[in-house]
């Protein structure tokens, strides 16, 4: 008679104990994005003037021409992207205000978009912004070690910029290179919006990422794509193992035999 009640009580007790056991270690949930509100600083406040450069003004015109004149606000993402490239990889409040002015919406509508997308940086990043993929396939293949190697080599924490302003490390969600996991992306803001590149370095190892960083520091551009010399793009290591010969034609069914 009392068995169900006792079982229920013991189960509940277990649950309660579990909650208490968890709490000290798990104090807060971490979020991928930075703060969702702005704090004025000398290099980021609404009073600093900001405008697109003359060459980019042409690009702005081109971007706006893709949309009907009464739907200018659709251009918010391409314009923010352009502003971010021009401003060395991050968006100041005045840059967002400038975009709002161009597309004729209230600034808050631009802030909403910029805070929503994690690829818009609202805090300073390095000239080379290194993004480590942290999603499951890359994590299984050792993305944490890669991030640790980068952070240790550069002497920064995640989200920080090195003293010389050259590098910063961030985390990204899946960038679609799972077959070449683990991978990092290098957003290169060293040549402004004209020479902006966003390159994938795949099949990296903790040793290789450090080499990549050093090459970038010297101004060289490492080979893009897989870093495993034995792989061609996303093909298997050591050459193809299947589909080696000429593909055979599909077998022709002998309909009469059926």
């Amino acid at each position, binding site marked *: 008679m009392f068995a169900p009640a006792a079982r229920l009580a013991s189960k509940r007790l277990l*649950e309660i104990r579990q909650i208490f056991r*968890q709490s000290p270690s798990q104090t807060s949930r971490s979020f991928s994005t930075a703060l969702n*509100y702005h704090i004025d600083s000398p290099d980021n406040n609404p009073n600093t003037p900001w405008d697109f450069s003359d060459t980019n003004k042409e690009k702005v015109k081109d971007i706006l021409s893709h949309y009907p004149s009464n739907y200018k606000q659709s251009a918010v993402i391409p314009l923010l992207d352009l502003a971010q490239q021009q401003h060395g990889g991050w968006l100041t409040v005045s840059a967002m205000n400038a975009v709002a002015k161009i597309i004729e919406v209230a*600034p*808050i509508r631009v*802030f909403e978009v910029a*805070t929503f997308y994690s690829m818009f940086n609202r805090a300073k990043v390095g000239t080379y912004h290194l993004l480590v993929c942290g999603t499951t396939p890359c994590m299984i293949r050792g993305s944490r070690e890669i991030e640790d190697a980068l952070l240790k080599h550069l002497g920064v924490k995640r989200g920080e910029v090195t003293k010389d302003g050259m590098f910063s490390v961030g985390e990204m969600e899946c960038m679609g290179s799972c077959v070449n996991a683990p991978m990092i992306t290098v957003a290169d803001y060293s040549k402004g919006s004209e020479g902006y590149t966003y390159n994938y370095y795949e099949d990296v190892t903790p040793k290789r990422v450090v080499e990549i960083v050093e090459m970038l520091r010297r101004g060289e551009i490492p080979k893009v794509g897989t870093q495993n010399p034995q792989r061609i793009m996303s093909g298997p290591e050591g050459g193809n193992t299947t589909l080696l010969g000429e593909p055979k034609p599909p077998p022709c069914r002998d309909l009469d035999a059926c």
Partner: protein
Amino acid sequence: MGLGLLALRATRTTSATLTRFSSSSPISRVPTISSFIRTIISTPELQKPEASAATQSDPLPEIHPPRTPLGGARVHFTNPEDAIEVFVDGYPVKIPKGMTVLQACEVAGVDIPRFCYHNRLSIAGNCRMCLVEVEKSPKPVASCAMPALPGMKIKTDTPIAKKAREGVMEFLLMNHPLDCPICDQGGECDLQDQSMAFGSDRGRFTEMKRSVVDKNLGPLVKTVMTRCIQCTRCVRFATEIAGTEDLGMLGRGSGEEIGTYVEKLMTSELSGNVIDICPVGALTSKPFAFKARNWELKGTESIDVTDAVGSNIRIDSRGPEVMRILPRLNEDINEEWISDKTRFCYDGLKRQRLNDPMIRGPDGRFMSVGWREALALVAEVVLKVKPKEIVGVAGKLSDAESMMALKDFLNKLGSNNVMCEGNGVNPQADLRSGYLLNSTISGLEKADVFLLVGTQPRTEAPMVNARIRKAVRATQAKVGYIGPPADINYDHQHLGTGPETLLEIAKGTHPFCASLLAAKNPSIVVGAGVFEREDKDAIFSAVETIAKNVKAIRPNWNGLNVLLLNAAQAASLDLGLVPESENCIESAKFLYLMGADDTELDKLPNEAFVVYQGHHGDRSVYRANVILPASAFSEKEGTYENTEGCVQQTLPAVPTVGDARDDWKIVRALSEVAGTPLPYDTLGSIRARIRTVAPNLLHVEEKELPIFNAELKPEVSQKMSKTPFGKAVENFYMTDSITRASKIMAQCSASLLASK
């Protein structure tokens, strides 16, 4: 995905119960089984809510009794062919095409729980609380965003719908703090009520709840952003109704929060309404914080007097204290919004009040005396001066009864110099259409071109401004504005600053004339600030010419409007409070100020005897010889007429302060002491007297439309001056004695006007 799973599980269980039903014989065998089971499990309903729901529901289709629509939901068929029929829980309802499923349910008398849906805001569909089951739809449907289709079978009380609501509620409560005991929304919280009605009694969330940084939105709105459930009602209100696009939804996922990004105060004159529309305690009233619980308060349905709109309000009081002011629904006047001044002026009712009758002694100081002495002194002085030298001024907040009594009293003494503040010299009181908002406030929505002459509705009458904004947003109505540069929160053309522009439009040479002529329902709004100008007759004749040219006055549309500034103005003109001589104040020996604080007293002769009857120690008290304390609008029953001619009454919510009395009673008592008793001594008999002067003032909550139009007015030969129009309201937050005494209004003018 989660909801789909829930729905799947729910369907599975119902089909299980159904098979159980069909296998058992139709005669009551199921109850016996369940009573047998009861010996093992005490309450089977708790374990399987669907099963118990299924046992209770009657499988036979029954004839549905007619139901009453919810919350005043009305069906209006613009075109009878557009009517479609849907079934809500089997009950057929006819609704016009384009209505949503939720609205159809409301018409059918079924209340659908909701958080993000608000019938005056755009549809967001992000809270998912309004999920219902629709036949042939694979998953539950968000009823607020789903248009009703002909023959739709909507089910609101099926296990699927119940389970869906329970699941959504669990998600909403996941990050909602359990701080109801210290939350000001407690007791009137949508989340609290709906979690009791539709939620589960347990949750499965064992992680840490999130926390969000509170935002500073200014001195009126207190934020506890951790309580926010991201319904975005406040964002939509600020964007659509208040017209200040400051609030937004920042971030995403569980990091999502409401904010302004760059720290910014909410500089809207309607910001207080976000407190009402917030379904949880995230946005609450800062002045009311931790003051009272809503169930301790007594609500009194009354009328606002801080502007000429006469917004319908509910005064919530506890004992002798007004605790807060809330809006009341009135579709014709304020919809369900009120301005910040209306909502937060109440703390002015507790400060600077006049308690006792006072006489200024020879040393210049006031002494408290009894009513007898004070009235005797006033009567003694008033009988000594010549009738011509007696002047009476009614203040901004005076009710019709007291103005009637004051006028009758002074007339009995032989003086006809009675006026009301803000009407200027020589007010035109003969034609009602000459001082009323003839289009009516709700009628402004029909206008397609506005011409604002010397008026800034945003500061003079925020509720009228909200209507104009509504029209501009809904029908792209054009707005032309003549006046000083002003902050207008909708698209408008600034045509000019002075009367020259008005003349140009009257002559038809101004480019704006084209849009006025093309308009179907042109609406010209003249501010009451024009009343104070020397050349007001010339301005009004120019405006009338424009109205004639653009055919603004037709049998079914009157587009010539005057926007009044004060609550007393319309009634005072109806009662004929027009002074006999223009500069009576300059020659006055006895001045009776009935709550008049904005009258220029510089020209008043030094030897003049001033009686101030009012409720606040405000500007005029400095000049007064005798003070007679009166009751404020929250303490008396009084009749007010708003700018569109709608008559409404205030009701006493709290007792009067100290020895104060109602305004008309003081005048009546004074007339007795002065030996010329007025022939009425009850509110009923004074209203009977009003009936002989302005019978429309007794038709409460009715609009008496003016019959005669401006065409009957005599020709004017006045010269128009070149002086540009001024601002009638310098500081929106401080316009009368109550708001000037209010600490909250002082904070507002300090922080909000400074940041503009």
